[in-house]
């Protein structure tokens, strides 16, 4: 069956769509009442964020727009050091969209939300004219259980750790669009488990950023600017899989500027870095965690090349790859 404009009329057809496709996956103690607004209980400070997802193609190796929509917001909440608890989800569906695919997306939203331990507590559906596309917005609330994390707390001598290989999501989406056959999968994943593992082991996280659009280089430039320090990274320690490295070599792309959807950058005091790496490596999604460089006095972001040359990194400029998330 295909979605048509009447599914968005707010009447019988909309109710049927929600009952038959969304509720089987999203029903819980908060959503079952189908109220216009939901009442939530939290303990103390909360963090709140929102993100929209327009990825093309909507299904790709390793995930789909549904898993992306959950992970994106869960990871944004996690970067503040908070525990993600509640999510809203809004679907904007173009007429002609296959309901089978809507089932697949709803299932994947539910599965990743379950994995991340967040509840989908409210939602919305709109149908618009178009050509069978779909767009999703999620907003999320997280509880602050420990003190919040701000990049500006970074200090001279702190080390930078990435939780795994760079550029996987970008390379996967690009391969799908260009019809290139390879084994590259998106790394889309909820990272709250990694973050909470470090917090519960009392690692003093000075800053966190999830490495999405713009890639590591752009994130580092933003960090350098906001904390007022120089960042130096080593080319040799940057983790990039062989497949991604090969693909980017052929297409003239730079993994430093390619986006991920399941990688976190941590700033950790030098003396705690080894412990942090061991914790990350023992957890799912952190197996390839590694130290890539350090914070020092000065400004700007510098890459030390394999042979000892110096390259100054700037934020991504230009379009990049559109509709990557």
């Amino acid at each position: 069956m295909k979605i048509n404009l009447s599914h968005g009329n707010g009447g019988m057809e909309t109710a049927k769509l929600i009952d038959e496709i969304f509720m089987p996956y999203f029903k819980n103690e908060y959503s079952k009442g189908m109220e216009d607004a939901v009442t939530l209980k939290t303990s103390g400070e909360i963090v709140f964020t929102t993100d929209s997802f327009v990825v093309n193609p909507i299904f790709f190796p390793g995930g789909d727009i549904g898993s992306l929509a959950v992970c994106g917001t869960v990871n944004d909440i996690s970067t503040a050091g908070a525990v993600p608890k509640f999510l809203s989800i809004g679907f904007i569906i173009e007429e002609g969209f296959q309901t089978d695919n809507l089932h697949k997306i709803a299932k994947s939203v539910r599965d990743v939300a379950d994995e991340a331990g967040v509840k989908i507590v409210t939602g919305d559906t709109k149908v618009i004219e178009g050509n069978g596309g779909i767009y999703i917005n999620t907003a999320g609330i997280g509880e602050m259980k420990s003190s919040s994390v701000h990049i500006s707390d970074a200090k001279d001598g702190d080390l930078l750790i990435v939780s795994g290989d760079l550029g996987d999501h970008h390379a996967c989406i690009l391969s799908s669009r260009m019809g290139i056959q390879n084994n590259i999968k998106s790394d889309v994943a909820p990272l709250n488990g990694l973050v909470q593992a470090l917090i519960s082991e009392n690692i003093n996280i000075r800053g966190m950023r999830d490495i999405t659009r713009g890639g590591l280089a752009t994130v580092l430039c933003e960090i350098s600017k906001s904390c007022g320090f120089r960042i130096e990274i080593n080319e040799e320690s940057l983790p990039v899989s062989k497949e991604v490295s090969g693909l980017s070599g052929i297409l003239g792309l730079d993994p430093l500027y390619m986006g991920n959807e399941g990688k976190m950058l941590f700033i950790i005091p030098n003396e705690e870095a080894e412990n942090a790496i061991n914790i990350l490596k023992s957890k799912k999604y952190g197996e390839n965690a590694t130290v890539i460089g350090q914070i020092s006095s000065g400004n700007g972001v510098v890459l030390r090349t394999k042979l000892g040359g110096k390259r100054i990194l700037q934020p991504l400029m230009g379009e990049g790859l559109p509709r990557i998330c």
Partner: protein
Amino acid sequence: MKLEQVISALQNYKKEIKIMEVCGTHTSAIVKGGIRDLISPSIRLVSGPGCPVCVTPKMYIDRLVDYAFAENTTVLSFGDMFKVPGTKYSLSEAKAEGASAEVVYSPLQSIELAKLHPEKQFIVTAVGFETTAPIYALLIEELIKENINNVKILTSLKTIIPALRFLCEHEVVDGFLSPGHVSVIIGSDAYNELCENYKKPFVIAGFDTEKILLAIYDIIYQIEKKDVRVENMYESVVSKKGQKAALSILDKYFESCDAYWRGVGEIKDSGLILKEEFSRFDAGSRSVLPDKADKHCRCGEVILGRIYPNECAMFGKACTPLHPEGACMVSSEGACGIWYANGGAN
């Protein structure tokens, strides 16, 4: 000789020498590899005219923009061309004003679009060197085979050897790091005549930092020994005679013509244009006029190896990738854009 010894020799070299890397991919590799940091400042590595976007004239962009505004007409182009400034608009600015222009990953995508929209005229931008030119020949072959009549190409295709000859005759360059990708197509023998006539080293190399350092060392070694030659250090992909299939399809559809290079001027026999018998697929490439001189933009001097990008007063100030004045700031292969993106403005 070990790499450490090569680096040490290059670090301690004292004589002033100017080596030109002809293609943008080498410029990018040199900057990204931090190579200037590893060698003596007396070895001046300058950029050449090998970035196709950088040498495409303003008047060509203007013609594309005219097409994009024309009724029932869509311009199809690689993304790089979209931001190149024309006299009034870039394609990207024209699109924001309502003109019809789309980014394609391959010119061959125009075939499907033409079939889907037989009522529309599609203009494909054909810009590039010997590396990209064969795909436009292939496009024409497919258009003929499938009897498609609503696709035309507007060409600003260039060939590298006449440009290198021009440089040897008019500029002071001691040696050339020859372009890797173009050499795959034209073969290493293509440089023999230039090497013999102008007594300069031509070294073809890959794009790793190590390979480029070895090539620079080889160029200096040749000059010191006064024994210049064409050296192919990229033998895994570059043969003596080049790619026969690519060269023969080029020959089938294109002939050479005098061509205008943005910022440089007209260079004899340095362009490729559709042969007369295929002119029905040509969107008027022969009638694109040369640019008027631009007083402020020094892109021409950058790609002739006279100045480094940051020696232009506009670099990083009036001219940035977000607001490019010159074409060299636009492209990912353009010297100014590469320098800027890698901190050259600081």
